[in-house]
């Protein structure tokens, strides 16, 4: 029998102690709420910001001038993150970004490590720049300690595996205690739940190293948990079909391409893009942010491969780049390069486009971070109608926490007895027991690989591939079959493999939701390419597509983007 080992009560439950989650927790606690964070790993070093980050998108009036619209325009039309924004949220974010930057600085995160506001990388020559160069190496430890100072309870090694809803509003969640080898369950009763489980990785075949599922640019623990669980309780998801693809060094998947100071070149030395022809510390080479498919295209058109050539760097700029990579959390990659004798001053490293994943696609939120289910909030990379990576996670995490913490009475809480007695709790427990008690079943990894192969073939994303109604309908059938197979055959031997098995089931749900959305978007809007609808329909350009589950049915709705000021 799998025990319910502990029952907790909180005003605000934060799911995921990443950047968004910790900011939400701190803000809610400042408003007087009793806050509990359930984190899959350890909040001091978890998620995509675990080892550091170095660009924080923001609007600092003393640098950018009094008109926020200037930066709004850049984010929406000149950045790699702006495609799926409700512009209203972009404005809310930018207006509050300076406050959060200054908060981080006051907590001891170096936001002006060179002594002044410095905006470099991911930029165009001659245009305004909004990526603040900072040093995020210790950011997670700092935020964890700020949360603790305010009385936040952090439960590490406690992934949330199911959200609980009653009478149409949030009641809490079930979490899996993976701190010991033997798994156990916890129930958390909370009327407000803020999700911050990050992007969704491990959904598609790994394109860098097919045999190594965890060779990823973003954190492999982010397996779509919050999105899948919110989908199961009927929350609205938005832009799910607009999968992203990141790029970086070939075969060694890593984020941080904006920190390289070099020129992307063809083997004949010609630059890929029109922006720079020698290393430029202020801008980097933004070509692959703009031409997202560049590295794949040049492999197909006979002109590739493409290389990042930093060989013309001055010694000062080289030092600056290496320091930037360290603050970005790339020390592991730098150590490898050292050992392998790869020196960016002499060697040009090939770049590639990685497999599809979800970032800035997922839960639909309003300006307070609220989702469509009362009491449910979301922030950070898992949100579907706004994306600004670290800055976005920090600012909207704060906004969601602040709102939830100051509206504690908005949703009445259920007692912990009522929450524990919800039929859903028993169902989750039975599922976990079955997986643990089964002997000789399918290990989670087989299941995860099966999800990936179906997604890759039936909901492909990006250049030189296309989806169609036939493929997507077949994919939905196969994912449905796979779910049944996994439910009847997956087995686990300890808390860790049970956690991975449940992640695999979450990935099946995320894949299904994505395919339903992709079926409904009957047009091509890269990276969503449809073989059966090859044109881009301008009528859909002003609209967003949402999907949700209602009593077993899939509801697909189009709505106008929110452009209010």
């Amino acid at each position, binding site marked *: 029998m799998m025990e319910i080992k502990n029952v907790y009560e909180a005003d605000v439950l934060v799911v995921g102690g990443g950047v968004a989650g910790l900011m939400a927790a701190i803000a809610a606690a400042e408003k007087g709420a009793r806050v509990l964070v359930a984190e899959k*790993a350890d909040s001091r*070093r978890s998620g995509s910001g675990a080892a550091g980050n170095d660009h924080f998108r923001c609007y600092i009036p003393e640098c950018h001038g009094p008109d926020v619209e200037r930066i709004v325009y850049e984010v929406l039309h000149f950045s790699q993150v702006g495609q799926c924004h409700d512009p209203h949220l972009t404005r809310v974010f930018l207006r509050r970004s300076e406050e959060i930057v200054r908060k981080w600085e006051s907590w001891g995160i170096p936001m002006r490590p060179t002594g002044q506001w410095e905006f470099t990388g991911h930029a165009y020559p001659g245009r305004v720049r909004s990526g603040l160069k900072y040093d995020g190496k210790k950011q997670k430890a700092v935020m964890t300690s700020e949360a603790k100072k305010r009385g936040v309870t952090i439960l590490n090694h406690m992934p949330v595996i199911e959200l609980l809803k009653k009478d149409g509003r949030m009641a809490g969640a079930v979490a899996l205690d993976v701190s010991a080898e033997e798994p156990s369950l916890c129930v958390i009763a909370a009327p407000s739940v803020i999700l911050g489980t990050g992007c969704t990785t491990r959904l598609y075949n790994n394109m860098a190293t097919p045999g190594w599922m965890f060779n990823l640019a973003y954190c492999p623990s982010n397996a779509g948990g919050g999105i899948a669980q919110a989908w199961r309780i009927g929350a609205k998801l938005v832009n799910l079909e607009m999968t992203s693809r990141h790029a970086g060094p070939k075969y060694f998947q890593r984020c941080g391409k904006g920190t390289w100071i070099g020129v992307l*070149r*063809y083997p004949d*030395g010609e630059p890929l893009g029109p922006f720079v022809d020698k290393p430029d510390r202020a801008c980097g080479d933004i070509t692959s942010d703009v031409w997202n498919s560049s590295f794949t295209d040049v492999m197909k058109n006979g002109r590739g491969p493409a*290389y990042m*050539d930093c060989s013309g760097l001055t010694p000062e700029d080289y030092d600056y780049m290496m320091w930037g990579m360290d603050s970005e959390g790339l020390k592991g990659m730098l150590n490898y390069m050292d050992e*392998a004798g790869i020196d960016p001053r002499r*060697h*040009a490293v090939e770049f590639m486009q990685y497999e599809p994943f979800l970032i800035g696609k997922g839960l639909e939120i309003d300006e307070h971070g609220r989702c469509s289910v009362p009491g449910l909030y979301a922030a950070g990379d898992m949100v579907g109608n706004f994306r600004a990576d670290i800055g976005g996670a920090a600012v909207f995490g704060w906004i969601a926490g602040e709102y939830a913490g100051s509206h504690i009475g908005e949703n009445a809480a259920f007692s912990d007895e009522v929450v524990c007695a919800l039929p859903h709790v028993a169902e989750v427990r039975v599922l976990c027991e079955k997986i643990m008690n089964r002997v000789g079943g399918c290990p989670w990894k087989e299941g995860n690989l099966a999800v990936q192969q179906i997604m890759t073939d039936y909901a492909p994303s990006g250049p030189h591939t296309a989806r169609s109604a036939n493929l997507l309908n077949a994919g939905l059938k196969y994912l449905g079959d796979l779910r049944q197979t996994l439910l009847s055959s997956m087995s686990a031997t300890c808390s860790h493999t049970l956690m991975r098995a449940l992640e695999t089931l979450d990935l099946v749900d995320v894949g299904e939701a994505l395919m339903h959305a992709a079926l409904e978007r009957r047009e091509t809007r890269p990276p969503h390419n449809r073989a059966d609808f090859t044109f881009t329909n301008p009528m859909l350009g002003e609209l967003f597509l949402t999907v949700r589950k209602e009593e077993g049915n899939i509801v697909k709705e189009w709505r106008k983007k929110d452009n209010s000021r």
Partner: protein
Amino acid sequence: MPPIIDPEKCKGCGTCAQICPVQVFRFHRAEEKTPRPVFGEECWHCNCCVEDCPAGAIRLRVPVPYMMVHVDADTLKPARSRHDGN
């Protein structure tokens, strides 16, 4: 196994096992002196364990397929001019 712990240097503090973002290690404090990287294939190579280990006892072994393919930067020239010796 990507993270490798030097048992001579390890103080058994458990930090690596605690903080790893993907939970590569198992550590039974009562019975073991050094954490074991049981799920080494899941290592993200984030380097957090290396950074946080107070004893400098951990190094990462990057799997061969992660090879960061590269060329000498001065070969990025039109093929003809290379033959010319430029």
